[in-house]
């Protein structure tokens, strides 16, 4: 427990001290959402209709932004070698790092999303489900990102490749997450989409530490 907390605290410290690590994703989220009305036109009912998808896609892209550093810095400065020798299993380490990534990237998005929802004329009924669906769905984005980050660690220009590998994995989460919010704004039943969303997240949380740790081990040898 002590070791787990030590890794988590360190990840949070590093994120907060590395040139606005957490703030950057949030700013990106804001800018993407702001660009949508410029592209689509300032028509409230049109914006209201695309608001759920827009907010979800913007959150997804903002999440992707900081993923390439998840293991890259530790790989470059030799930390990963030492971590591999530590008593903590690599799987646990991956899980903690992904969780820390969510705390610093996903969680701020969850909090900011309803405010940006107002600018897109999101219907009143959808706000709670926007927050809930993002809160449940964004951890899956961080964890799936950990697989991509582990696969591309140490690769030149890995950031672009990371996006190509990770974005297709986001499809189920995006579909169910955006569907939750859309159903809520249309006054339809949200529960089926939400159950699928939660299911995908739980599955992802279980699967990714194993896959990402395997990929990291392959990189180190």
């Amino acid at each position, binding site marked *: 427990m*002590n*070791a787990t*907390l*030590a*890794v988590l605290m*360190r990840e949070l*410290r*590093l994120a907060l*001290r*590395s040139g606005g690590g957490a703030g950057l994703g949030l700013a990106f989220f804001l800018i993407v959402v702001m660009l949508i009305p410029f592209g689509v036109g300032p028509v409230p009912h049109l914006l209201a209709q695309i608001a759920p998808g827009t907010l979800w896609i913007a959150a997804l892209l903002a999440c992707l932004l900081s993923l390439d550093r998840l293991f890259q*810095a530790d790989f*470059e*400065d*030799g*930390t990963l*070698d*030492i*971590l*591999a*020798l*530590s*008593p*903590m*299993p690599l799987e646990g380490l991956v899980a903690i790092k992904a969780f820390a990534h969510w705390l610093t990237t996903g969680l701020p998005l969850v909090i900011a999303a309803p405010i940006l929802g107002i600018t897109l004329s999101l219907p009143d009924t959808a706000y709670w489900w926007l927050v809930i669906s993002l809160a449940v769905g964004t951890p899956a984005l961080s964890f799936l990102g950990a697989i991509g980050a582990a696969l591309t660690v140490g690769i030149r220009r890995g950031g672009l490749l990371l996006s190509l590998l990770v974005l297709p994995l986001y499809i189920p989460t995006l579909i169910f997450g955006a569907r939750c919010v859309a159903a809520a704004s249309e006054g339809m039943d949200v529960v089926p989409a939400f159950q699928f969303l939660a299911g995908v997240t739980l599955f992802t949380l279980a699967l990714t530490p194993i896959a990402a740790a395997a990929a990291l081990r392959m990189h*180190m*040898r």
Partner: protein
Amino acid sequence: MSLNVSNLACFRTGRLIFSNQSFVIEAGEAVMLRGPNGAGKSTLLRALAGMLPSEGSVILNGIALDKDVDGVQEQIAFSGHLDAIKPQLTVGENLTFWARLFEGGSVDNAVDQFALAEIWDRPAHACSAGQKRRLGLARLVVSGRVLWLLDEPTVSLDTETTARFADIIKAHCAGGGMALIATHIELGLEGARVIALDPTNMRTATPSSDPFLSEAWE
């Protein structure tokens, strides 16, 4: 307590780095690993730490590397070319993190031995190369591991600190520890045994594991 290595060989991308290495390190012994550049010193250390695939047998305190990697790794502290230091954290934060993760030796002891008290609150990015190296080596002490694998540990250390580091290795070994040190300089460990890696005599072997070099090709 001992490290038994027999017939160790290592290939990287089909290239033989070294082969036929056999040696024993007993508890309380510090052994120097010598050889010219490219002889495979770093590779040997990483292979012993289970960080690279190797052929042959490595047994540390009765645990075989090929059977139980974790069991071997849990007894090893490694120091490589990189210091594994986060520039955004202070010296103290860096060291206490490793101490809490490894749950091994004493932080006070490490601070004392490597004279870290004066730079304890300094951000690591503001440290000199020598100070960073001291911090990196202090990790060995807080890890509380039996076998130290050191790859050029004295790079960027001044003579005084180098001498002090030699004393720390002696103290570690006096407590029943072991150390294998790849270095070019005289560390000041009198009477330490030397293992020499010679790059010339080992290039003849071909990797048996590479099926693409088979003789029976069409």
